[in-house]
């Protein structure tokens, strides 16, 4: 066949493939969006019979309703956010020095330690948290916010330590040595040279810890019940019978993730352009 026709065929095939991939990725999310604005949706309609923002209003506490499971999610949302912020602060206070030490010094069994941080995420979650529940009950931590914070730190620590240590390792030693050669102490060097250069990576690490805490379910379920109710728990309890409500919560949980990922992308790209020599 002649060249222009072949070209049209190729381009069409590419477009079809692109559309299919997009459907695969966005499809499930589209379902979520549709459900969140559906008032009534029965088979055999492909789209809801009635749409509106009723469930949104219920979720945000702007309208009370007698429907089962329809409560304001604002308290749970605020609790999740507060826990996430506390978790980030404590985790980074541990992860930054730990990451620096593991990156810059020859720690005996350093590789083993890094591996240990990975362990909580490498095993099936239920067995871990069932056992943790026993321990926490003995310590009086079950059903408390403190207990949930500890669980979130445990689960997010791998992101904390692994990303910070990789970040610090990427800062060449000679930059720190140069600072010391002009009279800066180790501490001064850390705050004025190392930290500014590590900032994007440390920010990325914090964001991962934050998102992990916000979305954390299994551990919170075992340790937090019955008194601590975070947003994912509310999502779980409503997902069986109140699809609209669950969709609203799911979208609300999605927003921070998307926001922060875009932020990281932008910040990290600027750093590559800004570059290190």
């Amino acid at each position, binding site marked *: 066949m002649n060249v222009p026709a072949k070209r049209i065929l190729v381009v069409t095939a590419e477009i079809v493939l692109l559309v299919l991939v997009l459907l695969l990725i966005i499809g499930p999310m589209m379902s979520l969006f549709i459900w969140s604005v559906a008032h009534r949706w029965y088979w055999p309609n492909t789209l809801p019979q009635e749409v509106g923002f009723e469930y949104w209003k219920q979720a945000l506490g702007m309208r009370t309703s007698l429907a089962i499971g329809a409560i304001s999610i604002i308290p749970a949302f605020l609790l999740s956010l507060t826990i996430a912020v506390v978790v980030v602060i404590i985790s980074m206070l541990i992860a930054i020095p730990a990451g620096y030490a593991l990156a810059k010094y020859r720690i005996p069994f350093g590789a083993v330690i890094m591996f240990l941080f990975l362990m909580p995420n490498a095993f099936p979650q239920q067995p871990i948290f069932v056992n943790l529940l026993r321990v926490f009950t003995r310590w009086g931590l079950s059903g408390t916010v403190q207990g949930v914070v500890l669980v979130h730190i445990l689960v997010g620590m791998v992101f904390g330590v692994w990303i910070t240590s990789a970040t610090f390792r990427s800062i*060449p030693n*000679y*930059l720190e*040595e*140069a*600072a*010391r*050669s*002009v*009279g*800066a*102490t180790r501490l*001064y060097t850390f705050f*004025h*040279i190392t930290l*500014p*250069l590590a900032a994007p990576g440390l920010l990325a690490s914090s964001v991962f810890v934050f998102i992990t805490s916000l979305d954390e379910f299994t551990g919170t379920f075992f340790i937090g019940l019955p008194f601590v109710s975070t947003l994912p728990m509310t999502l779980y309890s409503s997902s069986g019978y109140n699809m609209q409500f669950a969709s609203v919560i799911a979208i609300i949980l999605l927003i921070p993730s998307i926001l922060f990922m875009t932020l990281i992308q932008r910040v990290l790209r600027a750093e590559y352009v*800004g*570059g*290190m*020599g």
Partner: protein
Amino acid sequence: MPALRLERIVKRYGKVKAVDDLSLKVQEGELLTLLGPSGCGKTTVLRCVSGFVRPDDGQIYLGDRKITEIPTEKRRIGLVFQNYALWPHMTVFDNLAFGLQIKRLTKDVIKQKVEGSLALVQLGGLEDRFPRQLSGGQQQRVALARALVLEPDILLLDEPLSNLDALLREQMRFEIAQIHKHAGITTIYVTHDQTEAMVISDRIAVMEKGRIMQLGSPLEIYSKPANKFVAGFMGTTNFLHGKVVKIDKEYAVVTTEDGLAITGRGHDIEKGAEVDVAIRPESIKFLSPAEATDYANEPNVFEVEVARASYVGELIDYQLRIKNHLIRAKGEVRVARGVGVRFLIKLDADQLAVLRR
């Protein structure tokens, strides 16, 4: 009093001695180069002086201060790194001001000193640029300015020109020598490039395997090498192996296995000793047919045949066969000789070094 004194420094890495019982005195205001191949210990010595490496044994004195136990930031040194080590998140001005701010100087004083230092390296006007906006040569100058702006007791340079292209390197050599003369600061320079060392140094310490093989002025090192290593490291040297058959004051006559009788300068050798004769290309004089008859019966005249001739622009690099040996020589482009051509050469006895094996 020497500006820097190293006393019996030893540094081991596992079983290997990177620095082996090294002692050195650097005089006030001189530029001393540590010269040697990779792995000879020159960088380790520099890192001991700068404080990033703790010697296992020995002491270091800067002036009258013992600095062996003092941390780097208190040693009052200026350090120039091979890869410049400029802080990418700070402007040129801030890079230079960093050390001055630590000293809590006022803004005006800082501005004055920074501008002065940049003028010294001829980079005035670039204060607000970031390192990534500068060329390699400019970055190196900023690194130098940053080290000098604090007026340290000693300046340490670790192969500062290795990352630059050949042309720039040659230029910067002269500039560094000039800046050193202008600032008058005691300097230790580390390099593996012997031409660089000879151009800028007051004295050179040739190092190998953690020890100083020879310490002296560039002229001494080049013309009176103490041993085969030093002779071989400086310039291109040919070595002919033989036995001493006669000693006449400071000259020795050496016979090689294939029957050549060569006269050169030797000291500390006895008759019958196994030696190497170091023959530098510039000590080889090509004789024209007319000179051939004049010099026929003089010592150190040999017949050679051209094995290889390479044109390198300003001269011709020859490989000449002399009996069973091949030696490197340089010749003028005007009187080029092709492969297979035979002629006579005369070796200048004063320039040949007879070295104990």
